């Protein structure tokens, strides 16, 4: 756990610092992220350690307080946490999952967040993402890995007109400029 505590104390350079963007998009700085892999048998224990119910369906988000888990695959979750919470979460998981059959990788610095808001947001996303954003197909609370132009992204629908996007930091300027490019076509 020592190395995890050390990681969170490093100063961060955010991928989109100082970049002009579109009015629909806002960089989300800070936050800790973990990639969590847990086998079916340990879902209950891992959920208790996190205070989150991990048994819900794939491609859905569950939140409690500042902690969020996006179920990206049958055994894969993306945890979004407050930076100060990272060491606590890692410690409580290792305490509960004593068989060691799980993996928790700190990817806080690998990706960065983008908040998207407005009635045009689904149209802007469809400029580079082929998913159907009708609420029946992509309801509020859905979260999935997908593609935006050529970059891998994770999309979480927080409200009908509000999304949180996670993108690898080296792809962030690419995604950011394409969002602005498509976004300038929309009045609101």
């Amino acid at each position, binding site marked *: 756990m020592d190395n995890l505590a050390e990681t969170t104390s490093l100063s961060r350079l955010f991928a989109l610092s100082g970049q002009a963007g579109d009015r629909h998009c806002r960089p989300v700085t800070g936050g800790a992220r973990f990639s969590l892999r847990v086998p079916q048998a340990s879902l209950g224990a891992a959920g208790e350690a996190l205070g989150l119910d991990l048994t819900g369906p*794939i*491609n859905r988000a569950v939140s409690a307080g500042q902690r969020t888990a996006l179920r990206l*695959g049958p055994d894969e979750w993306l945890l979004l946490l407050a930076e100060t919470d990272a060491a606590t979460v890692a410690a409580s998981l290792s305490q509960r999952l004593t068989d060691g059959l799980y993996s928790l990788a700190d990817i806080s610095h690998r990706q960065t967040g983008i908040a998207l808001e407005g009635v045009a947001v689904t149209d802007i996303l469809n400029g580079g993402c*082929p*998913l159907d954003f009708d609420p029946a197909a992509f309801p509020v609370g859905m979260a*999935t*890995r*997908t*593609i935006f132009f050529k970059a*891998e992204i994770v999309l979480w629908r927080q409200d009908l007109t509000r999304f949180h996007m996670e993108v690898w930091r080296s792809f962030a300027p690419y995604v950011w400029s394409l969002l602005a490019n498509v976004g300038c076509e929309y009045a609101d």
Partner: protein
Amino acid sequence: MLLIPCPYCGNRPEIEFAYGGEAHVVRAADPRKEDDAAWTEFLYFRKNPRGDHAERWRHAFGCGRFFNVKRNTYTDHIEASYRIGEMLP
């Protein structure tokens, strides 16, 4: 755009997927006991039919899982998708 049914995520657009070639190609338990012809067959030769084909796909920009699809290579009609380890329906 072709929609591919991922057994985990449901129907998703084709560009989220990576093609993985013919499914159910079985590797010999002990390749040292294979003769050259059989080993060559395993390594290089595939059915490549015009019609029904069992093939592997990976939901690369999605859940990340490999799975199998039964697809008609002529019409692109997908008859079934099923998880790795399951038999061709």
